[in-house]
């Protein structure tokens, strides 16, 4: 399945801003995180096609996965 992964804030460091990648059928957000060496406690917000998703959410062809770290400073 072809998905788009968009990274925000500090997740971009050492990685990318946007990437299209082929993932196996049945892969979840958690699988994408693991492939990026991002651990679940680091994650602030996850959106799939603009809708909030949990990390065990299975992905579908064409999904756009947006990943934010915990950004809470002020």
């Amino acid at each position, binding site marked *: 399945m072809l998905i788009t992964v968009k990274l*925000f*804030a*500090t997740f*971009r460091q050492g990685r990318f*801003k946007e990437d299209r990648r082929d993932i196996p059928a049945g892969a979840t957000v958690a699988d994408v995180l693991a492939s990026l060496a991002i651990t679940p*406690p*680091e994650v*602030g*917000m996850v*959106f799939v096609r*603009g*809708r*909030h*998703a*949990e990390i065990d959410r299975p992905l579908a062809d064409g999904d756009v996965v*947006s990943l*934010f*770290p*915990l*950004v*809470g*400073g*002020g």
Partner: protein
Amino acid sequence: MLTSEETERYARQIVLPEVGGPGQQRIKAARVLVNGAGGLGSPVLAYLTAAGVGTLGIVDHDRVARSNLQRQVIHGTPDIGRLKVESARDAIARLNPNVAVEPHAVRLTPKNARAIVAAYDVVVDATDNFPTRFAIADACAAERKPLVTAAVLTFYGTVTVLKPYETGPDGAPNPGLRGIMTEPDDSVVPTCAEFGILGTVPGVLGSLAATEVLKIITGVGTPLVRRMLTLDLRDMSFDVLAYEDATP
């Protein structure tokens, strides 16, 4: 009614067709609560003061530290050691004596949040920790107050407007904070003290938050409801993410 002093002071925004005298009256009548008189809070307070918001409530239990002055520009060197709400109150008085200040030198918690936010029209989250952010968001949802929330870290920032008590054009409720993220374990959240923050970053995000407040008060433009503006100031990329909560 605006005095002649106010008419002269706010002339540059009164002349905007979208604001005019009626808009300035709304700004003068508005009561805005700003949670946090720090990096984000400083530009929020400064610009809302300059714009003539009638009453500013300020919530902050902390005192000014030397390391704050790199970015918390509403405070100055003589304010080191003072309560931030008092330092900010004095800065506001110097900038615009027409603005009334209601200082709340407390830590906002789930126990006191609703009573505090209830007295205001618009609320700003300019805090620096998630327990407080969630307490503010829960209180604003319960009291049906629009919440402008901004956050920063290193060179990055986000700002959005939460109005979960209203529905969108699709008839579905707007997402609240708990609809777009799970409250994290605060002990693992990266802080600006640990990872750093360029002083201009909260300056930019705070100015954007103040802009959203003025838009909400005057009805100008389209507030960032169901949209998150995210900034990467390393490469100056600004992205707007349209978002929904998980519940269809």
